[in-house]
């Protein structure tokens, strides 16, 4: 049947209120905190229309989680951010008391493993294993998560084929700069320009001791020779300040003017700093080093069912939107790779991008670290502590 234009508009006029009513009714089924998040982001509730399906899990997981009643979770979020993230989860699963702990990379990656080897499981879910995954894999410390339904939402390359980790959000590890000290025209469009522009010399550039976050991807995209040449010139000609602080501390120092810019810096952290009014911004030379932050469940975790429910929820659209609202980290969910979920999108989208994956982590990382350490120590930097 073909509708005439007049009839079509009449039908639309009649169905619109019904559609709105259905949408409102659906929105009302969402947790209140989720509704507020959608309002904040000016998103239609329809974006979460398949949430019920996404959150369907075996009943035994729910029953098990009810018995456990608890979930321990280590991550990098500030506690107020974690509160924002966890609010919808708490509303959906009120029988699970979430014990969140902010933990530095060393606490998460190394100390948790030391405790694990000492037969102590200090957390159920842990995140951001970046660079330390191989140690966990080696001793079989991670649970296989392939039975978690929402693992399928993660595109290939953002989850472990063996199910030992799942990407929780994206990170673009580029460069932060002080807007009072650096003009836009001085920003490097390609990494090579960092070597040639004199503005980055005389200690104006700070380098963090985490090459696996960015240089590893450049090795993958441009090759070994290119990267080694680039790094050699960077250390010997540009002579950046070699800093021992964490990436967030370096950003704080860039904002304060200790240096003009720092490498690496993640887009979401810089964005948070701009919201405080700090004179910092973010730029991404090509190729853009991208990575996913990993999330895993410790094998033998006492709250395994609660952990499964949590990871499944986190990888759902609702969880992914909640984590974006909490700290502006771009979602990894295949349906949420959109401009409005990406701070400094103009610096990232449309550029040549390389992704870090565990394969290069296992193969290239040891070679990279060996080469990097040589340059770092020769230039007066502090040993990473191998």
């Amino acid at each position, binding site marked *: 049947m073909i509708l005439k234009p007049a009839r079509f508009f009449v039908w639309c006029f009649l169905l619109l209120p019904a559609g709105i009513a259905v949408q409102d009714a659906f929105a009302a089924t969402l947790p209140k905190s989720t509704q507020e998040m959608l309002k904040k982001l000016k998103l239609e509730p329809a974006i979460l229309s398949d949430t019920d399906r996404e959150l369907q899990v075996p009943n035994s997981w729910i029953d098990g989680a009810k018995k456990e009643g608890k979930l321990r979770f*280590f991550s990098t979020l500030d506690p*107020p951010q974690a509160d924002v993230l966890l609010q919808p989860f708490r509303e959906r699963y009120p029988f699970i008391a979430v014990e969140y702990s902010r933990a530095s990379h060393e606490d998460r990656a*190394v*100390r948790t493993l030391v405790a694990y080897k000492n037969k*102590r499981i200090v957390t159920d879910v842990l995140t951001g294993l970046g660079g330390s995954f191989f140690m966990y894999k080696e001793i079989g410390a991670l649970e296989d998560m392939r039975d978690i339904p929402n693992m399928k939402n993660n595109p290939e390359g953002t989850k472990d084929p063996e199910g030992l980790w799942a990407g929780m959000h994206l990170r673009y590890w580029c460069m932060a700069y002080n807007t009072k000290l650096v003009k836009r025209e001085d920003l490097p469009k390609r990494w090579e320009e960092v070597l040639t522009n004199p503005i980055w010399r005389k200690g104006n550039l700070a380098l963090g001791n985490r090459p696996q976050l960015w240089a590893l991807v450049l090795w993958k995209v441009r090759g070994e020779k290119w990267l080694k040449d680039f790094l050699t010139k960077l250390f010997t000609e540009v002579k950046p300040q*070699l800093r021992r602080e964490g990436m*967030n*501390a370096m950003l704080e120092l860039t904002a304060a003017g200790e240096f003009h810019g720092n490498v690496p810096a993640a887009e979401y952290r810089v964005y948070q700093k701009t919201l405080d009014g700090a004179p910092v911004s973010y730029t991404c030379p090509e190729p853009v080093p991208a990575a996913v932050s990993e999330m895993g469940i410790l094998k033998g975790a006492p709250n395994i069912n609660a952990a499964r429910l949590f990871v499944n929820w986190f990888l759902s659209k609702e969880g992914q939107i909640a984590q974006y609202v909490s700290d502006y980290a771009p979602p990894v969910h295949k349906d949420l790779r959109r401009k409005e979920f990406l701070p400094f999108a103009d610096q990232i989208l449309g550029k040549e991008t390389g992704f870090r994956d565990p394969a290069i982590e296992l193969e290239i990382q040891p070679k990279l670290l060996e080469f990097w350490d040589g340059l770092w120590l020769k230039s007066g930097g502090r040993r*990473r502590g191998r």
Partner: protein
Amino acid sequence: MGALSRLHLWHHGVFLLVLSFVLLPLSFLILGSFSTAHLPTDFSLSTMGWVNYLKVYSDPGTYEVFTNTVIYVTGSVALGITLALSLAWLVERTNMPGKIWVYAGVPMTLAVPGMLQAMAWVLLLSPRIGFLNKILKDLFGPAAPVIDIYTLGGMIFLEGLRLVPTAFLMLVPLMRSMDPALEEAAAVSGARPFSTTRKVTLRLLAPGLVAVMVYQGMTALEVFEIPGILGLPAGIYVFSTKIYAIVRSATFMPVYGQANALAMVYLLIAVVTTYLYTRMISRAERYTVITGKGYRPRPLDLGRWRYPALGIVFLFLFFSIIMPFLVFLYASFLPYLQSPSVAALKGMTLKNYRLLAQYGEVGTALTNTVIMVAVTATATTLLSFFVSLVVVRSKFWGRKLLDQLAFVPHAIPGIVMGIAFFWVFLKLDFLPIYGTIWAISIGFTVNFLSYGTRSMNAAILQVHKELEEAAYVSGARPWRTLWRIFFPLMLPAFVGVWIWVVLHAVRIAGMPLILYEGPKNQVLAILIWNMWDEGYVGAVAAVGTLLMIILLLLTVVVRFAGFRRHAAEGAGA
């Protein structure tokens, strides 16, 4: 022989306890230095070898670390002792006005943790963003000289300041109890006042001074926080930070055996210094300067230098307490780090304090700290008392060894002791201690035992044996004698040791950094260290401000109580 000394069983018990607390971790430290396994849990005889020694001692960097450490310790002690000696001399031997401020103010500097002091000075003298350096640049242009705190000189300056209060407290009694007859004789013979000070006073003080220097040298050698905050960012290592750098890894499983191999240097130093210190103390009577005569030293008239001298004292107090506090107070209200300006003042916020209130970890760290500190202080006080009772009062065969065992941990840095206990707790995993605050508490108790026993030895010596014997003759049981005689008489010593331990346990980060497992057993010092490391400068400033206020109040209460006690004793006399 007193009643207490008849209980040989508990003598052996105390001896065995201290022996195991000190020697067990040190044995593991030595054993671990030969282990090529990454973790103590993987240790086995088949993983033993010399690899760690070869790796560590064939590294030219190790010798640079050695040189840095020697310069750092020597410089800090020289500066600290010079300042402390000057202050003690000014208050005890001159007519400088306002002495009460020095007596009250200098010990109060103990309340400012070295870690916070170093952080405050970073905010002041970081080469590019330090508030003072920025002011210098504003005044004299971009070519103005920059004062860089991230240097060996900066570390020496700050550690020197930090050593002053303890050295001052040790030197004041020396100055006070010295018979002025020789000085007066020099004056009568026509010597000028400063010449008398140099040629007579200082020489009379020399033996005591050397003992104080050795003690302070060991303290500087042990300190981790100041070289950690100022040296690590600039790649300047001393032994304690080098060991920390080896075990601190964000990517790889650390090779603990290498840290152990490097720590052997400390063990050697500990053995040598303990031997020297014990020898020095045992020969102290040769240099007796207190006589039975009643005397009152004649204060040196400073003339027109009276007020400038007071000014210098205030400058020290300003640098040590007021300035760090003001810097932290200011930074705690900033949304992000920026130099003082009208815009910065306008943008001030309570965000950092709110963040602390929302940080669940702050609450956990606070609770852990209170429990850990209270348990450590109580355990140290009690154990020190019983050790000293054996050492001073008994004829127990091993009492001298016991005294030396109790002293050894002072010469071993907390971070090394931490690694030693790390091996013990992980290897003896049937003890459910690793990863709890009890691990930190045990480590600290052993570390503070040397101070506790020095204080208790002196205090027990002041209680005459007659009292104990009278109680015994009257039929009192040993424990009743302890409770009714020793406890009331030694209460000031108990309180003194307890509070000293509280003030130190709350501020030291080195050992807890090794023994903590994660957010659940972290204490305030670790929280501050980690927050600083991760760039939460505002939050560190907020927690630092609050901590300084609490510790300053605690110190004021102690000083007030002390003054009241002295006043009451004075009135009684």
